[in-house]
């Protein structure tokens, strides 16, 4: 009773266990849980102990539950029994049906063996019959096969016999591809039997092939054929085992030779540029060389393209060729610009070259032509800029020198002025032109120029800097100032070199330097600032290349140096004159003065020449007579002292003066300020003349100091100086200084005189008048000065 409910649970549980044991990888684990939990109450487990189970039941449950359990168990047992019965029954049924089937099979197998034997017999007979047929047909089949082979052979023989004709036909129709295919197909046979059976055939076909090869070669070489055709020809030739390499070499050589034709020769370049010029006006002109050249280069690049396709392995060679052409172009360009070339022409040529390069670059991009040509172009443009500057320099110096030659023929005319103006113009015009040229360079929009813009600006700035520097050096060399140190053979005596160079030229150079400093350099710097300043990388590294301030300084110094040099050369000439005058006579035994000595005339003449040159070149000073009062103010004692030397007083005080000469000089020197004999030279006519006179008078004084005079000697000096006074004052700006210097000469003479007795004024006057009359008579150029 109590166990009746249990079998239901047991059954479900068993089912579960079976399932889980089937699915779980380890059945012991899955079952162990249930076996432990139901170690006592699980009926299905192997360790089930009925007594224990009962004890547990009784202990645990009350009666009702036990009863229920009992009922449940009874039902379960009943169920199990029916199940068992059902199984047995079913199995039995199956066994019976299987027995039936076996019985049936047994009955069917009977009689099968006889059929099988029959079948075997029949198959055997079929086989023997087919063998019979086979043997009877064998001979015939063999025969047929033989015939077939012969036919094939005959066909081949036919083909070979036909080969020459066929080849000829191909030649006629120019289907060389087929021809080559045929020939190559026939090749093995011809190789084997060529010497025996097919001798004629072989010969004929070889001849035909030779023609074909020839034709192919011509085709390859002919420029009129299309590239593809030529490429095919090349391939065919290769198939024919013709040595293509030598062909290639030949072709490339030809191409190389054609390079010569492509050169822009320096002589032709100008023509090229010119013609181009005219063609710009009239487009109809078809035959201008630029066009021809362009076509030629186009052809060349086409050819290169072709060869490249034909001979893929020839690239290196082609690169070389293209590079060579580019290099040649630039070399020729270099030669071309060695002559004087305008920027426009230069650019035109450059454009042509650039076009060529672009054409070639399209064909052979790997040749890096643009890089190569960019480099070359840089060099060329740089050279061009440099050349332009050197041309300008040459121009200027030519202008100066050209006139110098004329000058020696006609000194009297105002040649110096002409020279100065001409060279000024040359300088200004030259720089203007240069700027125009360079602007063209900058405006040019060929790719390469755009890239080089900064560089060009740098070069131009540098160029100007260098130009002005070398111009300055050139000036100095022209003036003979630095020639001695430059020319190694040296030994140039200063006198000699200054003879060679006309003194006037030095003056012109000096003034020209001033002009450059004041006009040209500011203009150039303006221009540069206006159109040539740019982000120049170089400029930032080394500071701006063009430094007008420095150049101005250089030229300022140069102008001063040159002016000084002019004065030096002039005074040297006079100095030589004076030296001769004072060295030759024996002053201690001098005879009485009869007239003013010749050297005074020469001296004045030299001064006059200086005056003339100066007038032509230098501007007039603005303060002609002011200086006098200034200097008078500063050296009052000097002027008062010079007053005492004036004629009237001089005669009266002569005897005392002679005695107290030294004392007076010392005293005067104590009180007076130093007369500024050696003032700075200015760029005015007066200043230069005055400086020259001052230096000459100083020399005169020094020469006098070196001699010892007798009375007559002293009087001669006195007379000469007295005569000089008037004309010198005429020409000179700083009268006080001249007065002082003239007096100094007389003082020096009196100091060096053994017996100081001056000439009486009437005699002095008379002699001077006589001299003046004489010079008037001569009526030469002295007139203007002495009057």
């Amino acid at each position: 009773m109590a166990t009746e409910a249990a079998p239901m649970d047991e059954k479900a549980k068993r089912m579960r266990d079976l399932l889980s044991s089937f699915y779980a990888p380890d059945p012991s684990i899955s079952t162990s849980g249930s076996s432990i939990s139901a170690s006592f109450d699980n009926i299905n487990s192997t360790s089930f102990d009925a007594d224990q189970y009962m004890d547990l039941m009784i202990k645990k449950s009350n009666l009702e539950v036990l009863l229920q359990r009992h009922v449940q168990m009874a039902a379960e047992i009943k169920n199990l029994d029916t199940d068992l019965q059902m199984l047995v029954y079913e199995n039995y049924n199956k066994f019976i049906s299987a027995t039936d089937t076996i019985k049936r099979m047994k009955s069917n197998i009977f009689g099968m063996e006889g059929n099988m034997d029959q079948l075997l017999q029949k198959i055997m007979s079929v086989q023997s019959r087919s063998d019979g047929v086979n043997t009877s047909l064998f001979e015939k089949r063999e025969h047929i096969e033989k015939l077939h082979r012969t036919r094939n052979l005959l066909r081949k023989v036919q083909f070979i016999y036909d080969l020459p004709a066929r080849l000829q036909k191909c030649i006629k129709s120019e289907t060389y591809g087929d021809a080559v295919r045929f020939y190559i197909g026939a090749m093995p046979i011809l190789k084997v039997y060529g010497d025996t059976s097919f001798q004629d055939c072989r010969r004929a076909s070889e001849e035909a092939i030779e023609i074909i090869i020839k034709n192919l070669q011509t085709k390859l070489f002919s420029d009129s054929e299309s590239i593809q055709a030529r490429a095919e020809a090349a391939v065919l030739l290769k198939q024919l085992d013709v040595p293509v390499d030598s062909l290639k070499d030949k072709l490339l050589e030809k191409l190389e030779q054609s390079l010569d034709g492509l050169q822009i020769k320096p002589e032709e370049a100008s023509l090229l540029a010119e013609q181009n010029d005219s063609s710009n006006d009239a487009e109809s002109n078809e035959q201008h060389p630029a066009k021809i050249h362009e076509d030629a280069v186009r052809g060349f690049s086409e050819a290169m393209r072709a060869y490249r396709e034909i001979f893929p392995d020839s690239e290196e060679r082609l690169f070389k060729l293209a590079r060579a052409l580019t290099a040649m172009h630039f070399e020729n360009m270099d030669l071309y610009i060695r002559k004087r070339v305008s920027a426009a022409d230069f650019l035109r040529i450059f454009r042509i070259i650039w076009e060529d390069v672009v054409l070639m670059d399209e064909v052979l991009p790997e040749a890096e032509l643009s890089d190569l040509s960019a480099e070359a172009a840089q060099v060329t443009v740089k050279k061009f800029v440099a050349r332009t500057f050197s041309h300008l320099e040459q121009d200027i110096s030519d202008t100066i020198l050209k006139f110098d030659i004329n000058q020696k023929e006609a000194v009297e005319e105002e040649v110096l002025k002409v020279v100065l103006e001409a060279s000024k113009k040359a300088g200004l015009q030259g720089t203007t032109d240069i700027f125009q040229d360079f602007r063209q360079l900058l405006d040019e929009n060929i790719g390469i120029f755009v890239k080089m813009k900064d560089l060009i600006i740098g070069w131009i700035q540098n160029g100007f800097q260098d130009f002005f520097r070398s111009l300055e050096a050139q000036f100095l060399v022209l003036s003979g100032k630095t020639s001695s140190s430059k020319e190694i053979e040296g030994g140039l005596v200063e006198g000699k070199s200054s003879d060679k160079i006309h003194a006037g030229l030095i003056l012109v150079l000096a003034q020209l330097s001033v002009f450059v400093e004041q006009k040209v350099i500011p203009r150039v710097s303006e221009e540069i600032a206006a159109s040539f300043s740019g982000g120049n990388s170089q400029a930032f590294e080394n500071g701006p290349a063009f430094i007008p301030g420095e150049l101005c300084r250089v030229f300022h110094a140069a102008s001063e140096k040159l002016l000084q040099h002019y004065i030096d050369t002039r005074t040297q000439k006079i100095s030589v004159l004076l030296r001769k005058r004072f060295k030759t006579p024996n002053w201690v035994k001098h005879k009485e003065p009869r007239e003013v000595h010749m050297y005074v005339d020469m001296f004045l003449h030299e001064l006059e020449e200086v005056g003339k040159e100066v007038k032509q070149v230098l501007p007039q000073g603005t303060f002609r007579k002011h200086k006098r009062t200034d200097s008078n103010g500063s050296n009052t004692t000097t002027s008062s002292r010079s007053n005492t030397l004036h004629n009237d007083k001089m005669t009266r005080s002569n005897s005392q003066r002679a005695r107290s000469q030294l004392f007076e000089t010392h005293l005067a020197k104590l009180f007076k300020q130093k007369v500024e004999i050696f003032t700075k030279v200015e760029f005015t006519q007066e200043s230069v003349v005055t400086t020259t006179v001052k230096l000459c008078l100083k020399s005169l004084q020094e020469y006098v100091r070196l001699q010892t005079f007798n009375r007559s000697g002293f009087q001669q000096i006195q007379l000469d100086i007295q005569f000089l006074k008037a004309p010198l004052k005429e020409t000179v700006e700083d009268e006080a200084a001249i007065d002082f210097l003239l007096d100094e000469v007389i003082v020096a003479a009196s100091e060096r005189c053994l017996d100081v007795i001056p000439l009486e004024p009437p005699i002095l006057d008379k002699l001077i008048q006589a001299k003046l009359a004489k010079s008037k008579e001569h009526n030469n150029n002295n007139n203007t000065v002495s009057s």
Partner: protein
Amino acid sequence: MQGGSSGIGYGLKYQARCISDVKADKDHTSFLTGTLSLKEENEVHLLRLSSGGSELLCEGLFSHPNEIWDLASCPFDQRIFSTVFSTGDSFGAAVWQIPEPYGQSNSSTLECVASLDAHVGKINCVLWCPSGKSDKLISMDEQNFVLWSLDSSKKSAEVLSKESAGMRHSLSGGAWNPHDLNSVAATSESSIQFWDLRTMKKVNSIERAHVRNVDYNLKREHILVSADDESGIHIWDLRKAKVPVQELPGHTHWTWAVRCNPEYEELILSVGTDSAVNLWFASASSERKASESPVEASRLRVNPLLNSYTDYEDSVYGLAWSSREPWIFASLSYDGRVVIESVKPFLPRR
């Protein structure tokens, strides 16, 4: 010591042209100078720089019969010196000795050691052998020069040899090569001539017109400095004498004399008729000059003029470095003013 630019002055009574350093005086810095006066009685002054260097004292005053055109102190005996003098129409040269107890009497007479009377024309100068021991002398007139042997104890001078330079070259002065005692440089109208004293033959010449003065550089062999009227100062390397090693602008007017400093080889002094004394720094290493283009060289060169002393009233003719204190020099202007200056502020750093 003195400030350098403000020199110490001393006035002679008359005009004067020549001043000489007394080389043989090892204890003092002394100079000898003589006046040039045609009519008055001429004097020779022995000047000594006081030990503090602040004063220039007259140690001796001696009358000299004629105006003095040239004066040179004997390098081995401080009491002996030579003069070239003029009587107005004729020239003479003599060697003098300062009398023993000098300094006390106001105008003691000079003792004439020897008269160098082998000349007829205008005598230019007397040169003492620069070795400092030798008793050789050279006297030079416009055509000839004579080599003398002096015997101061016997008070006689003997002509050793005499050579004529020829009429065409009128000699104007010279210098004895301190590095080669057989060589003398003589300046003439058109060139600097070099004479070998053994053969008395001209061995070399530099073509250069109107050279006024030459001086050998004591410290550097083969270097000669010349001054001329026209283009200032030239420095020559005698081994390649075609082109000057360096040019200095010189003076506004003539450059009258040049002197190389006896100690500092780069320092050169020049005096000129523009009343100035110029101190030059000639760093003339010939290699540098040759390697560069002339333009560059002139650009790179710093101004070689270290200082110009212009505090003179008249042309400066006389110039002498002190050999005892080589930073001191004496200059003499025509008005008879001796000025001692120190170039210490300009000395090259060593």
